[in-house]
């Protein structure tokens, strides 16, 4: 029972970091991801705020470490459909290249990540209907094409899906303020003559160097921030008419744009729910993992006996934070295994 390995579900940055840290201490790790490649959402991202590291190169570095460590076994294109606690260990069943498999693990890290909010739920913004309306995630995926296409006016709309009780998501997705500022910066750098507007309710840049980054976008790139949430996007003469209120002036405003970017929220992934409930964990009202109260758990990332979590399956977080949580979960796993060994003696 003692020599069984550790299962890491989800090969995003949090899961990769956890796998690397656990394997570094000599433990066997099985890293499972349902995608064909490791790296989760981050592998498709361009530059990451605030220091503009390329998401793809970060993932490349982590994948290289994982490949060079024989202790880590990577199973891609594999989905864990059952995870149960059996006599102090964890039994996982998954389908690997068509073959159902079962394996016993002594501990597990859940890092199933998040999904992107579907912009089509906001009919008034016309995502999917009006050409020129894209989401921030589309911007990341098609960055080069978007930056090349000449744009006269671009509008960024924040809080699409975040902080909206009527859509059932009262929480703040945390990263949208920063990635919007970053995308505005990239657009302005690629096309200095473009007019770029950002419609915001509040600017939540509470990351290291976050405030300076957003101020820099405003002051040095002259991106115009307008306080107000857009009411409607109307296609007019081949362009997009934005109707909103400038709440600082208290007047309705209209402006025509060629590109509208919706800063969509992070929503909990479907995979999280079934896994967490199977091992006896709980979800909060929004569908993210409900952590054990701080004063009751030994490790901040612990969920139930031998199960830890990391990354955006707990709550929206940035890449840096996801890696921190991965490391914290790894530390939790190692100390759990150590104390278990002590108990077995």
């Amino acid at each position, binding site marked *: 029972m003692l020599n069984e390995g550790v299962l890491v579900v989800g090969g995003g940055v949090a899961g990769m970091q956890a796998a690397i840290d656990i394997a570094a201490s000599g433990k066997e790790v099985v890293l499972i991801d349902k995608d064909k490649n490791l790296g989760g959402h981050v592998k498709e991202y361009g530059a990451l705020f605030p220091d503009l590291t390329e998401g793809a190169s970060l993932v490349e570095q982590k994948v290289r470490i994982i490949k060079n460590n024989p202790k880590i076994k990577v199973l891609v294109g594999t989905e864990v459909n059952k995870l149960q606690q059996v006599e102090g260990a964890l039994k996982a069943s998954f389908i690997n290249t068509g073959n159902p498999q079962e394996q016993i693990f002594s501990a597990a890290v859940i890092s199933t990540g998040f999904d992107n909010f579907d912009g089509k739920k906001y009919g008034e913004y016309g995502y999917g209907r009006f050409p020129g309306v894209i989401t921030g995630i589309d911007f990341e995926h098609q960055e080069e094409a978007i930056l090349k296409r000449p744009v006269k006016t671009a509008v960024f709309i924040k*809080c699409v899906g975040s902080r909206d009780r009527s*859509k059932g998501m009262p929480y703040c997705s945390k990263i949208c303020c920063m990635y919007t500022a970053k995308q505005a910066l990239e657009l302005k750098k690629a096309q200095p003559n473009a007019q770029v507007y950002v419609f915001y*309710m509040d600017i939540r840049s509470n990351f290291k160097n976050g405030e300076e980054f957003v101020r820099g976008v405003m002051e040095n790139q002259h991106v115009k921030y307008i306080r107000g949430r857009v009411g409607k996007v109307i296609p007019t003469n081949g362009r997009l008419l934005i*109707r*909103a*209120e*400038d709440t600082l002036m208290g007047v309705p405003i209209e402006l025509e744009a060629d590109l509208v970017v919706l800063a969509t929220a992070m929503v909990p992934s479907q995979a999280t729910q079934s896994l967490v409930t199977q091992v006896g964990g709980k979800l909060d009202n929004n569908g993210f993992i409900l952590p054990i109260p701080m004063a009751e758990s030994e490790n901040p990332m612990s969920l139930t006996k031998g199960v830890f979590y990391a990354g955006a399956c707990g709550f929206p977080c940035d890449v840096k934070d996801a890696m921190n949580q991965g490391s914290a979960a790894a530390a939790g796993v190692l100390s759990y295994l150590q104390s278990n060994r002590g108990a077995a003696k």
Partner: protein
Amino acid sequence: MTMVITGNSTLQAEVEGICDVNIDACIQCGTCTGGCSGIELMEYGPRQIIQLIKLNQRQLLLDSKAIWMCVSCHICEDRCPSKIKITSLMDTLREMACKEPTTKTNEQIKFHKLYVKQVKAFGRSHESILTMALTFKGTPLPPLKLMKDLITRMRVDMTPPHRPNKSYRLSIRRVEEKGGKRHGK
């Protein structure tokens, strides 16, 4: 203009007592005003109306034209991220304005009262009678040319109004007895 704030808003407590809204849930995002269909005619948008309630500006609000220019299209309410029932709120404010003794001279309220009286009596509005009634209340008649055109082109009904049937009269009585106590519930 300086608004003097003294203590908690009594207006807010009053509004929240009549209608099912939490004024403090408003995050002042301006989505309501951004989509408002009557904003061109309003001196305050829905967002500002909510802020005025917080600031206890009772007289300013109840005298305002804005609350009467809302056509209850529900666009604001539909898009509000804080689920505030703005349409119910507007109804409540209009109701309060009608009861307020100081707003009797307000043009909108005069019109509103006559209009409701007519709908109760005839089941619909009757433009020519409404125009006459407004004239008696001190509103000047429309220009003669306009009146002539409206009548000759049969835009205004000059025949006497019909009397609604019994079931309509009964339902109006029922609404008067029971309804209109609490909005949005």
